[in-house]
C-alpha cells in the first residue's frame, strides 16, 4: 500500500513538473505577444498623448515583466526539482548539487542566461515606466519605452526561435550532467549577476538617447533622467569585473587576475565606454555641453555590451567563459547592425539640434570639457586596441587562413600607457573641482602639488630597494593623494561654513560630491594594486622534494610532503608547505588539487596568504617521483588593495545614489528652458516675413 501511494505521489509530482514546464513554454510564447501589445500601446500613447494610453502603456510594461518572471520561476522550479526531461535541466544540474547552485544554474547555460537577461531587461523597463509620474509630462517616455520593448522583444524572439530553455528531451537521461565544478563557487552568484545587471542597465540610457533623438530633444533632460541608471549600471559592471578578477585569481591557479581572455575583454570594453560616458554626462548635466559625445558614448556602450554577448555566444573566439558555439552570434550581429543604422540615421537627421546648450563666452572649450574630451579619447583608444587584440584571431583567419593571436604584452603596452595618462588626468582634474573654479590657479594647485611629495618619495624608495619603479603605481598614488588632499581642502572650507561634520554627508549635493571623491580614491587604490602586482610580481616554478625549502620574495617555504584528505564529493591531494617570514614560522599553506569521485576534471585549489603589502600565492602544478611536488609560487605585492578599492567603490556609489531633490529642480529648469526656446522659436517664425 505505501508503495502504491509513493508511486502515485511520484506520478503526480512528475505530472506537476511537466505542467510547470508547459506553463514556462507558454510564458515564453506569451512574452512575444506581450511585447507586441506593449509596442502598440507605446505608439498609441505617443500619438494620442492621452492619460489612458499612458496607463495602458505602463501596465503593458508590467505585464511583460510578469510574464518573464513567471517563465524564470518555472525554470527555477524545474532546476530545483531536477526534472531531467528538460534538456536545460539535464545539462546544468546533477545529483547532490546544492540549492544555491541550482538557482545559479539559471544563468549557467545559454538559454537560461538569455531568459535571465530578458528578465532584467523587462524589469528595468518596468521600473523606468513606473517611476515616471504622469503628473510630470516626460516627452521621452514613449520613445524610451518603445526602444526597451523592442529590445525585450528581440530576446523573446531568441528564446522562441533559437534557445528554448524549456526544450524537452526525447528520453530523460539517468542523471544530469551537473554544474561545472569551477562554477560551483559563490562567485557564480556575484560575477555573472553583476555583469548582467550592469550590461542590461545601459539599455535604459541608450533607450532615452534614442528617444531624445527621435523627439529632437537631445538636451540635458535625457542625461538627467538616466543619471541613476547610468551610475548603477556602471557600478554593477565594475563590481562584476572586479569580482571576476578575484574569482579568476582564487580559482584558476595561474597566479594572476586578468589574462586578457576574449570574454574578459568583452566585459572591459563597455566599461571603458561607460566610464567615458559617465564623465561626459556629468559635463552635459552641469554645463549643457558635450551633447554629441554623450549620445555617441552611450550608444557605443550599449553596442559594446551587445558585442560582448556576441563574443560569448557565437563561438568565434575561444574562451574559458564562452558558451558553446551556436547560431546566436548572427542574431546579435544583426541587432548591432540595426542599432548602428538606426542611431546613425537619427544622428544625421538631428545633427543640427545636437548642439551644446551653453557656450562659454571667452574660450571655445572649458577646462573640464578639455580634460574630459582627452579622457574620452584615451578610453576609446584603449577600447579600439582591446577590440583589435580580441578580434585579431578572426581577422587573421580571414586574411591568412590561420588564426593568430596577440600576446599579453600587446595589451599591457597599449593599455598601461593609456592608463598612466588617464590616472594622471584624474589627479589633475581634481584641481578644477567645480567649487573652486573661481579661485586663482596657484591657490588651486597646492593640494595637487603637495601630493607629488609622498608619491615621489615612494618612487625613489622603490627604485632604491628593487632597482625599478612603476609609473602607473606612483601616478595612482599621486592621484589618490591629490583627490584626498583636495577633498580635505574643500571639506575644511565647508566645515568652516557650517561647523558640522554631518554636513558633508547630510545634504544631498555634498553627499554626491563626497561619493565622487571616494570613487576616485577607490580607482586610485585599484590602480596602485594593479601597478604594484604588475611591476613587482615575483613567480617561480620549482620541483621540491619532501624536506626541501626555497626562498621567494622574502618568504622561506619548506615543503614537508604530500597528503590526501577525503572531502565531500572527492579527494584532495595537497602539498604541505610551511611558511617562514624573517626566520620565523608563521603558518602552513596547503595548495592542492581536488579530484572528483564522479570523474570530472580535477580542479586546482590555490593557497593564498593575503597581507596589506603582498600576497603569497601557491598552486600545486604537479608531483614528481619520490613524493616531490611541483610548486607554482607567486608573490604579488599590493594585490589586496584592488579588492579594497572595490569595497570603497561600493560605499562611494551608495552615497552618490542616495536620493537628492536637486535633480528634479535641474530637470524642471531644463524643461522650462526648452519650453522658452520653443516659444521663442515660434515667435521668431511668426515675426519673420513670409
Amino acid at each position: 500500500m505505501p508503495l502504491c501511494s509513493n508511486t502515485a505521489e511520484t506520478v503526480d509530482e512528475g505530472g506537476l513538473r511537466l505542467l510547470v514546464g508547459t506553463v514556462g513554454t507558454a510564458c515564453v510564447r506569451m512574452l512575444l505577444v506581450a511585447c507586441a501589445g506593449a509596442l502598440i500601446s507605446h505608439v498609441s500613447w505617443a500619438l494620442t498623448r492621452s492619460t489612458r494610453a499612458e496607463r495602458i502603456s505602463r501596465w503593458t510594461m508590467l505585464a511583460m515583466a510578469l510574464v518573464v518572471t513567471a517563465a524564470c520561476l518555472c525554470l527555477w522550479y524545474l532546476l530545483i526539482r531536477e526534472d531531467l526531461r528538460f534538456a536545460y535541466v539535464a545539462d546544468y544540474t546533477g545529483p547532490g548539487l546544492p540549492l544555491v547552485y541550482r538557482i545559479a544554474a539559471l544563468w549557467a547555460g545559454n538559454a537560461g542566461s538569455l531568459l535571465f537577461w530578458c528578465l532584467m531587461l523587462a524589469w528595468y523597463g518596468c521600473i523606468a515606466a513606473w517611476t515616471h509620474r504622469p503628473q510630470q509630462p516626460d516627452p521621452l517616455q514613449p520613445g524610451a519605452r518603445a526602444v526597451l520593448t523592442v529590445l525585450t522583444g528581440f530576446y523573446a524572439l531568441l528564446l522562441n526561435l533559437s534557445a528554448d530553455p524549456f526544450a524537452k528531451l526525447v528520453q530523460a537521461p539517468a542523471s544530469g550532467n551537473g554544474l561545472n565544478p569551477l562554477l560551483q563557487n559563490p562567485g557564480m552568484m556575484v560575477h555573472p549577476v553583476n555583469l548582467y545587471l550592469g550590461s542590461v542597465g545601459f539599455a535604459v540610457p541608450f533607450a532615452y538617447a534614442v528617444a531624445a533623438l527621435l523627439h529632437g530633444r537631445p538636451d540635458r533632460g535625457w542625461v538627467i533622467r538616466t543619471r541613476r541608471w547610468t551610475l548603477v549600471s556602471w557600478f554593477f559592471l565594475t563590481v562584476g569585473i572586479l569580482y571576476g578578477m578575484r574569482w579568476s585569481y582564487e580559482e584558476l591557479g595561474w597566479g594572476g587576475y586578468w589574462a586578457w581572455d576574449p570574454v574578459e575583454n568583452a566585459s572591459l570594453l563597455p566599461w571603458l565606454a561607460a566610464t567615458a560616458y559617465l564623465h561626459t554626462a556629468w559635463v552635459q548635466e552641469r554645463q549643457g555641453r558635450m551633447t554629441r559625445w554623450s549620445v555617441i558614448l552611450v550608444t557605443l556602450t550599449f553596442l559594446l555590451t551587445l558585442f560582448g554577448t556576441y563574443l560569448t555566444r557565437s563561438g568565434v573566439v575561444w574562451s574559458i567563459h564562452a558558451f558553446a558555439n551556436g547560431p546566436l552570434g548572427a542574431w546579435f550581429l544583426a541587432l548591432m547592425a540595426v542599432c548602428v543604422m538606426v542611431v546613425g540615421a537619427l544622428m544625421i537627421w538631428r545633427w543640427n539640434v545636437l548642439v551644446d546648450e551653453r557656450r562659454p563666452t571667452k574660450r571655445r572649450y572649458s577646462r573640464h570639457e578639455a580634460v574630459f574630451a582627452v579622457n574620452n579619447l584615451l578610453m576609446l583608444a584603449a577600447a579600439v586596441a582591446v577590440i583589435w587584440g580580441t578580434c585579431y584571431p578572426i581577422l587573421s583567419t580571414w586574411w591568412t587562413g590561420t588564426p593568430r593571436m596577440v600576446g599579453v604584452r600587446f595589451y599591457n603596452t597599449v593599455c598601461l600607457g593609456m592608463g598612466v595618462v588617464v590616472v594622471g588626468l584624474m589627479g589633475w582634474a581634481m584641481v578644477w573641482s567645480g567649487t573652486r573654479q573661481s579661485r586663482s590657479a596657484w591657490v588651486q594647485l597646492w593640494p595637487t602639488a603637495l601630493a607629488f611629495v609622498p608619491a615621489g618619495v615612494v618612487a625613489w624608495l622603490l627604485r632604491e630597494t628593487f632597482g625599478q619603479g612603476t609609473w602607473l603605481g606612483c601616478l595612482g598614488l599621486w592621484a589618490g593623494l591629490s583627490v584626498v588632499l583636495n577633498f580635505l581642502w574643500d571639506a575644511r572650507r565647508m566645515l568652516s561654513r557650517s561647523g558640522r561634520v554631518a554636513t558633508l554627508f547630510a545634504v544631498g549635493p555634498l553627499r554626491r560630491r563626497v561619493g565622487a571623491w571616494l570613487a576616485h580614491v577607490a580607482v586610485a587604490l585599484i590602480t596602485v594594486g594593479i601597478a604594484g602586482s604588475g611591476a613587482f610580481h615575483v613567480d617561480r616554478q620549482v620541483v621540491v622534494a619532501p624536506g626541501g625549502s626555497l626562498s621567494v620574495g622574502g618568504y622561506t617555504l619548506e615543503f614537508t610532503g604530500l597528503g590526501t584528505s577525503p572531502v565531500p564529493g572527492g579527494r584532495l591531494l595537497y602539498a604541505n608547505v610551511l611558511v617562514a617570514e624573517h626566520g620565523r614560522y608563521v603558518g602552513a599553506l596547503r595548495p592542492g588539487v581536488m579530484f572528483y569521485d564522479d570523474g570530472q576534471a580535477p580542479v586546482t585549489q590555490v593557497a593564498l596568504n593575503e597581507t596589506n603589502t603582498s600576497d603569497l600565492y601557491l598552486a600545486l602544478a604537479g608531483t614528481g617521483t619520490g613524493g616531490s611536488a611541483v610548486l607554482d609560487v607567486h608573490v604579488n605585492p599590493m594585490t589586496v588593495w584592488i579588492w579594497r578599492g572595490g569595497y570603497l567603490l561600493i560605499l562611494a556609489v551608495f552615497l552618490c545614489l542616495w536620493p537628492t531633490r536637486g535633480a528634479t529642480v535641474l530637470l524642471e529648469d531644463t524643461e522650462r528652458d526648452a519650453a522658452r526656446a520653443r516659444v521663442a522659436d515660434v515667435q521668431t517664425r511668426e515675426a519673420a516675413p513670409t
Partner: protein
Amino acid sequence: MKTRTRCLLRAAVIGVVATLLYTWDARAESTGVAQLVFMPDTTRDAIEVVENVQGPPNAGGGWRVSLPAGYSDLRVDGASYTLQGNTLDVATTDSLVFSFELPLHGLMGLQWTFVAPEDLGAVQLWVPEDGTLAVSADNLFTFTRQTTAGDRSFRVLTRSAMSTGETWTLSVQKLPSATDPPPGADLPALSTPLDNRHQVIQALSNLILAAVMLGLTVWGLRVEGRPRRRWKEARPGAGVGGGAQGL
C-alpha cells in the same frame, strides 16, 4: 610470489567483472559494453588495467583493439601475450578480456586515448575506492555507483554510447597513499577554503547588496520624479550640488 598474487587478484577481478557484465544493464544484451578496471601497482609508479569488451550477440566480424602507447605485460584471457605494435586483432565477436600495465608520471599521471573496438552501448570505468587512484574524463554521467569485486570496493563511472573507432581521452592519476598530515601540520593554516555555509552567506550577501543598490536607484527615481517643492538646495541656477564635483 608477488607475481602470482597479482595474477590471482587479476583473475579474480576479471571473473567478477565478467559475471557482473551479464547482469549489468539491459542495453548489454543488444549492444556492446566495455569495462575498464583500474588497479594501482603498490610497488611501482604504474597501474594495471583490465579491459573487458563484451560484444552484442550474433554479431559478425572481428574486433580491432587499440592498446595505449607504453603498455607492457599484455595478457589475453589470463595468458601472457606478445604483440607487435599497438593493435590487437581478434576474430571472436562474443567477449574479450585482456589486461596490461601502464606507467604513471607524477601528478600529470596518464593521458590515455581509448578507442572503441566496436559499437558500444556504454563504457564503464571501475576505480578503486581506497583513494589511491583518481580518474577523470569528459562525457561521464554524474551519477556513479559503488560495487565490490572480490574484497575490493570500486566506484563505477559510466559514459554513454561510442561508435566503432570513436576516441575518448581518459586521465588517470595515482594519489599518495599517506593520508596522515605531514610534519608541521600543527601550524595554523594561513588559507582555508570556504565551507558550504560561508559560500552561501557570501552569495546571499551579494544578492542583498545588488537588491539594496537597485532599491536605492528606484527610490531615487521616485523621489527625483516628484513635483518640485521648496528645498533649501533648490536655489535657482544652483543645479545639482551647486556646481559641485559629483557623479
